[in-house]
């Protein structure tokens, strides 16, 4: 029953209703010169999104299409799905780690982990990680003066 487009349509319908309600609270325009207020355009777009979402939900229900296979645990995932999941998790961990350690430590750990995940040889992994950090430091840090 949880067909991909049906779920997506329901989520977008919910979001559009939420945005519409918020747009009602924005300053209104002036009636003397006819300029619509700040809530006019987002309000109209929210209504259009809601209408299209309903159409999408109907189409999703009729087409009965699933885009993702259900999985119970990480061990049961196919390799590509597991790699995807771990890549996304590692991106989130990288962002959290960056708050507590220097950028180069965080990105180094991130690169190393990804190369392990994608089954690169250890020596190749180490060389790639070191070269990448050096490249970022020299090009972005020193030449472009990016403040990591």
């Amino acid at each position: 029953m949880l067909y991909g487009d049906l779920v997506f349509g329901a989520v977008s319908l919910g979001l559009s209703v939420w945005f519409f309600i918020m747009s009602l609270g924005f300053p209104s325009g002036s009636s003397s010169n006819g300029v619509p207020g700040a809530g006019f355009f987002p309000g109209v777009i929210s209504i259009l999104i809601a209408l299209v979402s309903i159409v999408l939900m109907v189409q999703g229900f009729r087409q009965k299409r699933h885009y993702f296979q259900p999985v119970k645990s990480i061990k049961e995932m196919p390799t590509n799905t597991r790699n995807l999941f771990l890549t996304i998790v590692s991106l989130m961990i990288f962002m959290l780690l960056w708050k507590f350690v220097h950028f180069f430590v965080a990105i180094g750990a991130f690169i190393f982990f990804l190369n392990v995940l994608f089954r690169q040889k250890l020596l190749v992994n180490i060389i790639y990680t070191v070269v990448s950090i050096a490249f970022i430091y020299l090009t972005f840090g020193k030449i472009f003066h990016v403040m990591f």
Partner: protein
Amino acid sequence: MGIWLHVLQSLLNPGVLLYLLFGVVIGSFLGGLPGLTATMGIAILTPITFWFSPEKGFAMLIGVWNSAIWAGGLTAILVNTPGTPASIATTFDGFALTKLGKAKLALQINTVFSVFGGLFSTLILIVAAFPLAKLAIKFGPAEYFMLGLFGLTMMISVSGNSLTKGALMGFAGLLVSTIGLDPILAAKRFTFGITDLLMGVSFIPVMIGMFGVGEVLYQISVSKSDDFIERDENASDKPIDLGKDHLTLKMIWEMGPLAFLMAAVATVVGAIPAAGGDIASIICWGQAKRLSRHPEKYGKGSEEGLATSCIANNGVLGGALTTMLTLGIPGDAATAIMIGSLMMYGMQPGPRMFVENKEFVITIMLLMIFANIIILLYGLLTTKASIKLLSVKKQFIWVTVLILCIVGSFALNNSMFDVVVMLIAGFLGFFMKRMDYAPGPFILGLLLGKIIESNLRRALSLTQGSYSFLLTHPIVIVLEVLIILALIGPLVKKLRNGRKAVA
């Protein structure tokens, strides 16, 4: 004439030409490696170019853009995998020629005719842009509002298989564009108390995320298990035989009339907002087959068929630039990013640019010519070396792209918030790709949203709130008709296909 010579002199500066060459070389990797696209490359490199002068920055971007489209034909020809979407039609005859032992001929056709298409469309840009800009000066808020809607509608109508999904993405992009300060009343909208959102959702991190991170995540999700198995380095895959046949002047001469015609078609297609190289090359290939004296050879190794697809995919670039520079409406995704790049340099694409930044407009035109000349030399000299592209592991590409996306989006404003926006856009881009939602309408909605909204409200203020401008301005009416045709067209086609299937 004086201004042209002055710009030419300033471009014949080793610094600018070097950046153009860098761009061509980088573009050859981006286009030649499946999974990397010209749009992704431009999105990732744009933040880096901000440290350069506008001439050098744009030299690099123009080099990347032209070269990546050309290089997409390399893997299309050698291994039947288009390096970029614009090279889909190149696989039809390109790979067939490789199987016939004529890879070298095919690669030379790709180079020579891609450059021809690029140069032809650039000449059209040079001739047509200034008169078009003068016409565009007559555009008022009502015309710009309708033009923005037209661009968005075109993108929705050509995106993917579902008009509904395309429309949803387009409207979603418009809604996201309203985040930040209202352009007229400066009221806060959907900022949720986050200061970084006051200026709105930044376009470039979204582009980097959707076309960079989103694409990598998608490729990881569809990769096969044996992509991760270490191959025996001594195992020999059968090397590709380039063959001895090569392109001759006689072949070029014989294909001349068709080449000019297809280049013209491709330029016009490129000028239509949202119609890119993939659409142009398929249209041109089909038309060339109809006009050819030997249509039976098409799809089986026709040099003419290959030349046509190569002309078309580079021929759209000049057309797309014409629309971008004269009207401020992107001709395709790459020009959408370039609009963002121009705005970061303090320039506003559109007719005003031809007055306030005329020299830079001419700079872009001349850079297009130089880029194609460099590609011609580079392409012909590296024909044999292009096979090396096939040996680069996908995993290295994935990690490299992810790193560049993170660093590039941070480098824009030294802001972690941009990285967060980039990652959210990346996850969204992945889900969109996986569920057959085209990102094009979303990106265009995000880019055009402010133009559409502010011009609509200005048009309404000029008419005291009356919508009569929709029926009284001739250019607006023409655009309305085009919008209706763009929306009805796919629906009619779908109904016809449905009837044929039943019959």
